[in-house]
């Protein structure tokens, strides 16, 4: 059976969902923010430095290891659960900050006649990538806790780097091999020609 009806149905449903967005309100967790208003908004200033330093502690093993060593299983279990909740709250704070940053940008840009579509598209893509990353991280932290999430992310990034290096080596090696082959071929041709 042809896929065309399903394609058009998907498109229609997507449009219906988009219509729902026309009338939707802002996410509840993001409604209260000092700089945001219904009118134009300025671009929010930078981070609270304490929150930034705090985030390092949340994902650090040191405290968890100490509590596990010196307290009961119940205390350490409770501590880990609290740290997971804190990690998720921190992630929501980051997403909230970025959400209001982009909101302020869009509200400022929409009135600017010098808007550059290419820059806007790039920014949109960056924002989308951030959303995907943060949502994946949220899920991972929710599932396995901040410490294991940190280990997993660290491992994934190292693996990605290793794969990239391997690919670069392969490409370089492949290029070298191809170059050698080409050289051999041309040498053979030259010899044949001279004979």
């Amino acid at each position: 059976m042809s896929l065309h009806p399903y394609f058009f149905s998907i498109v229609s449903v997507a449009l219906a969902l988009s219509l729902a967005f026309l009338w939707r309100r802002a996410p509840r967790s993001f409604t209260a923010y000092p700089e945001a208003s219904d009118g134009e908004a300025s671009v929010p200033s930078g981070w609270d430095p304490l929150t930034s330093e705090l985030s390092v502690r949340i994902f650090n093993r040191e405290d968890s290891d100490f509590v596990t060593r010196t307290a009961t299983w119940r205390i350490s279990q409770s501590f880990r659960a609290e740290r997971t909740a804190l990690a998720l709250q921190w992630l929501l704070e980051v997403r909230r900050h970025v959400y209001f940053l982009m909101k302020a940008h869009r509200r400022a840009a929409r009135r600017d006649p010098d808007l550059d579509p290419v820059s806007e598209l790039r920014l949109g893509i960056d924002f989308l990538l951030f959303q995907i990353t943060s949502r994946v991280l949220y899920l991972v932290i929710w599932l396995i806790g901040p410490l294991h999430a940190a280990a997993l992310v660290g491992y994934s990034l190292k693996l990605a780097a290793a794969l990239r290096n391997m690919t670069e080596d392969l490409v370089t090696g492949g290029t070298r091999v191809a170059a050698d082959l080409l050289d051999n071929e041309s040498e053979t041709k030259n010899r044949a020609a001279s004979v």
Partner: protein
Amino acid sequence: MFPTILWLMGLALESILLVRAIQGNILKHYRVFYLYLAGILFRDATLMPVYYLWPNIYRYAYWYCEFLAVVMGCGVVWETYKLALARYPGAARMAQNVLPFLFVLATSRIFVKAWNSPHWIPGKTTLETERDLRVVQMALLFGLIALIHYYAIPLGRNLKGIIYGFTVFVAMTLIHLTFGNYLGVSFRFLWPYIQPMAYIFVLMTWCRTLWSYEGAPELEINPRLEIDYQSLASVTKKQLRTAHNHLLKTIR
């Protein structure tokens, strides 16, 4: 009998909309939309006697009128873009770049099909032609809705109603034209009821949202925002990258 009742209801609602537009002085604000509506009313009023008295020519009359309606519908889409983005030159600039892309994307399908099919004849496959034109309208509406959502463009009740109603109408027409072509008799048995009912729903929505004039709300301009776009984009990009890097570095 029931389809006839729906047809008459449609005529009545269209008339109410036009009368209300003149009474409430709304006509001058949405000229192309009301011209479209007047055209639809004229078409529906004309086709009704043709359907009952000369059924043999009804099919041809319908498709020619429908084609005109599709073309006028494109005018409605153009007007909604113009009105929605009138006070937002930045968003309008995005639309100027995105629209042609969407238009080319949607129309390329028509040309590809015409190129690949030796049997493609515009007059003979009118259903497919209308469907393809409706796809173009849908793509443009989708682009408009995406822009409105992305830039949080405030719309008044009137414009919201026009966009919402027209989008539902185009979507239902597209479903009709698509499934009717593939599912055949079983679908065509139900659709004479479903599509007119959906159209009545659209007309009632327009009656509700276009009963009186309500333009887009005025927003205060914040004097702090008198910075150029490049600086704004640069600051935003930097902060976004900082947030992204902070996210990954903290977790690592």
